[in-house]
Every structure is written in structure tokens, then in C-alpha cells.
């Protein structure tokens, strides 16, 4: 059975879209395709107007490098690096020639209230702090598209709300396009649109007021 069937969706620039659905509904597959990590067997994925299906792997890597970034449920920070170095790696990948990358990494972490955690390794951070570092890393190099897979699943209520606010601000202030896959109903309050998948198909699509 295909993970996704007859799915045709547009994610507008400068919006936050929430994708919900039970396990196995195809949310992760959708996110993987949007992120050029998977190609559909049929149909086309467009990123910023360009069809990405038929691109080679190096070309898809370049698309991710320039336009797309990810936030993961399990944070996926580099365990041997400090918070500052984790964000700096993001710059190293996306903007290798940037001489001020350490300074810019510091500014991002300060922006997310992590000024006193710069030199701590991930195992010394709380889950909320780890996710903020992960978001900072994802924003290094200023990608226009952010794809978040269950970003608040491992967080308590307060930390989770904080993450929702941060990503919402990225849409409001920076004009980024954010797609969040989550079971967390709190996201409805922060999303411009909610898509519900079921068994690989779009069950419901609603603009939030």
C-alpha cells in the first residue's frame, strides 16, 4: 500500500502549516518528500517553483543546503560538540565561506535565550534547550523553508509552547515557510493551516482563523 496517494498540496511562502494524522498516515513520508529526502513514484515535488524529483542526489543536497532545513523530534545534535559548535556546523554546511560564523551562531543562541549555554554539550542541556539549539542550527545560513518533525514531542508543556512561539516568530518576522508534523494539538493555535492525513490521503484541510 502506498504511503501517500492522490496528495496534491501547496505550502505558501511565509506560512506555518500543521500536518496531523495518526501513525502510518504518511506524515513523515510527506515531510521526507518536501525535504528532497524521498522521491515520489508518481507526481512532482516543486520547491520554490523548481521540480526536484528528477534531480540527482548532489543537486538535491544543494537544494537542502540552500533552501531547506530540518528540526527533529530527537533533536539530533552532535553529541561531542558544544551548543555553539553545533550551530556553527550549520553555517559550515550552508555558508562555508562565512568568516563570522561563530559570531552569528552566538547571536542565534542569544536570540533563543541560550547565552549561558553556549559552551555546554548536549548532554548538559534540558530537552527544551536542546530543541532550541537544534532550531538555531536549522536556521544557520537563513534557509527559507523549515520542516519540523514532532518538534515538541519530547518536551514538557512550557518548553513545548516556547518552541511553538519560536517557530511562529520565524514565520511572522522572517517570512519563512514552516511545515510542522505533529500530534500535538497546541500547534493549531500557531498554525495558519492544518492538514489532516489518514491512510496516505488528505482527509481534511482547514485554514485556521
Amino acid at each position, binding site marked *: 500500500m502506498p504511503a501517500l496517494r492522490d496528495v496534491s498540496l501547496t505550502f505558501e511562502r511565509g506560512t506555518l502549516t500543521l500536518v496531523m494524522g495518526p501513525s502510518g498516515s504518511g506524515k513523515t513520508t510527506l515531510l*521526507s518528500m518536501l525535504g528532497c529526502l*524521498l522521491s515520489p513514484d508518481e507526481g512532482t515535488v516543486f520547491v520554490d517553483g523548481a521540480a526536484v524529483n528528477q534531480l540527482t542526489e548532489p543537486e538535491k543536497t544543494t537544494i537542502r*543546503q540552500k533552501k531547506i532545513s530540518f528540526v*527533529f523530534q530527537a533533536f*539530533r545534535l552532535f553529541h561531542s560538540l558544544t551548543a555553539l559548535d553545533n550551530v556553527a556546523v550549520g553555517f559550515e*554546511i550552508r555558508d562555508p565561506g562565512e568568516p563570522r560564523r561563530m559570531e552569528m551562531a552566538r547571536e542565534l543562541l542569544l536570540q533563543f535565550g541560550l547565552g549561558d549555554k553556549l559552551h555546554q554539550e548536549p548532554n548538559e542541556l534540558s530537552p527544551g534547550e536542546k530543541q532550541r539549539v537544534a532550531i538555531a*542550527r536549522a536556521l544557520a545560513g537563513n534557509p527559507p523553508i523549515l520542516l519540523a*518533525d514532532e518538534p515538541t514531542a519530547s518536551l514538557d508543556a512550557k518548553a513545548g509552547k516556547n518552541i511553538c512561539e519560536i517557530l511562529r516568530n520565524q514565520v511572522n518576522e522572517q517570512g519563512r515557510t514552516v511545515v510542522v508534523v505533529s500530534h500535538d494539538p497546541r500547534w493549531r493555535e500557531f498554525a495558519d493551516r492544518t492538514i489532516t492525513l489518514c491512510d496516505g490521503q488528505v482527509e481534511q484541510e482547514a485554514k485556521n482563523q
Partner: protein
Amino acid sequence: MKLAWQNIIHDRARFSVTVLGVCFAVFLMIFQGSLLAGFLRAASRLIDASDSDIWIASRGVQAFEFGTVLDSRVREMAAGIPGVVETGRVCMAFAVYRTPNGTQQVVALVGADPNVGKRFPVPNMTESAGGTSPEAVLYDVSDRKQMDLTSLPAEVEINRHRASIEREIEGYGAFLGVPFLFTSYRNATRYMGFGPQDAMYVLLRVSNGYQVSDVQQNLRQRLPEVDVLTQSEFAHKSRMYWTMKTGAGGAILTAAVLAFLIGLVVVSQTIYANTMENIEEYATLKALGASQTFVARIVLSQALICGVLGSILGLVAAVPSIGYAKSLIPWIYAPWWLPAVMVVPSLLMCALASIASVSSALTVEPGRVFRA
């Protein structure tokens, strides 16, 4: 690359073991290289010490140590060849040496005419040369213990003939396990029981106006029953005999290759284990947009970090060790460029060791980042 560095040192115990493994490999390669370099140099040392252009030896002589007596007319005929400006003689034979205390052992006795070369260890004929008499016998300082002498000059016996050992020299220590003794050609033939006109090796210097190869060709035509070799040809022949035909060179080279393989295995194990332990991080990097080159560079950097640090330690350990080994193996030789040159195969070893790991990192699916 900070990520490469931090990842590799994160497990300090494993990192230390890897660096020590590389250190051992580099140390062994340098040591074996010194043995081989010293062996090659010692195998042709006396040939290289002469100033002669051409050596004449009995047919089929494989190395300096195996000369046999030539027909006396060989020297006369060689002297008459156009282009030959000077002839000299060298002989070598194993002899029985007896100290004043009565201890006996075998020595390698070498006799040479004074004109065979300035660097050739032969007693000087002139009185101004430190008071050494022309019939003196010389030995190398590294063989002092074996010579069993308490002071110099010392009266000894060589093949039941009285001899006077007068001076120590340096740079001509035992090569075959028996000390060299050096004396004049005339003296040597007396100890060896040769006739005064006999020659084992006839050495020729060629005049500036003649090509050595032409003179050599001429000699070969006039003297087909002997071997006529340039100095470099005879030196090469002697080196090839001792390193290849005896298997000694092969044994030394084998040990060096084994050292290389040990280092290769140690580094590849560590880097592979490290890569597989961090495979999810490589998937994350790729998902975030890291290119294949970026990912490969991390793995390769880790291998080279181990290589550089291990090489430095290996160098630091090898230099004093070779210095100490000289007291046990007098002919060991480490030219200044040898340790530096050995760094190249050690870095290559580390790069090769990382191939499997690079492959694993490059083929990891970035899509696995969404698996729990």
C-alpha cells in the same frame, strides 16, 4: 574540522590506543628503514670508500667479502690500457686473531694500497700522519670490546704472525659479526699468505680525458676472464647480494610491510567503529545539506588526525632508539630524511584505513533521520 576532532577524541581510550598503534607502526617502519639503509650502506661501504673508477675482480665475485686471488698479469695488463692513470690493490680474507691475553677469534682482514682512496681506512705511509707506522693495524671503535685490548698500541697475532694494533677508527664497524682489521696491502698479504704480486681486487683510476665506460669496455675485451665493473656497479652488486640473495633485505622489508599493515588495521578498526557509532550524525549532516565531500572530509580528517599524532610520537620514539641501537648494531643508519619520508606512508596508511568508513558514511540514507 572541529566535528572530526571532537568525535575522534570523545572516546579517549580508543583514541589513545589508535594513536599508539600508529606510533608503533611508524616507529617500526623508521627502525626497519634504518636497518635497511644501514645494511645497504654497509654492504658496499668499502667499495664506496675508494676513489677508484673501476674494480677488477675474479669472475663471478658476488660481493666484496668473497674475492679470490687474481692472476698477477691482470694488474700489469690493466695498467697498460689507455686512460688508466693509476692502479691500486685491495684484498680481504678472514683470519684468526689472537690477543695478548690469549683469546682468539675470527676477524675480517682488509689490506689496501695507500692510493685506493682518501676515505679508505688504511694506515698512512707518511710519518706526519699521527705517528702511525705503515705496517700498523687499525680497527673500528665499535669493536673495541671484541678486540679485547686494554691499551694501544698492542702486540697481537694475526694468523700466527705478530701484528701491532695502533689506532682506532670510526665508521667501519663489523658487518658480518666479525670485526674488520685494516692494514697495508703488503702487510695483509703477509698475514694471508699471499705472494707479494698477488691481487684480489685491482682498482683503477681513469684519466679525465677518457670515458670510464670506454676504458671498461677496453678492459673487458683484453681481460675476458675477469669481471670489470665500475665502482657503482660493484657497489650495487654487493648490496644486491647481501640484501636479496641472503634474504636479509627481504626480512627487513617484510617487517616494515608488516608494520604498515598493523597500523592500517588499527586505524581502520578505530575509524570504522567511530563512524558506525556516529552514523546517525552523518545522516543528520546529509539531511541538513552536507555534501558528500563534506562528509568524506570528516572521516578522512579523523584518520589523518590519528596519523599525524601517531607519526609525531613514532618519530620522537624512533630517533633516540636508533641512537641507542647503534651501540648494538654499528652499521644502522638513519639519514635525516628517512623519518620525514616515513611520515608519507604512514599518512597514506591512515587514508587507506578510512576507505571503508568513508564509504559507510557516504552511503547512509539521510531519510533515516525521521526514524525514531
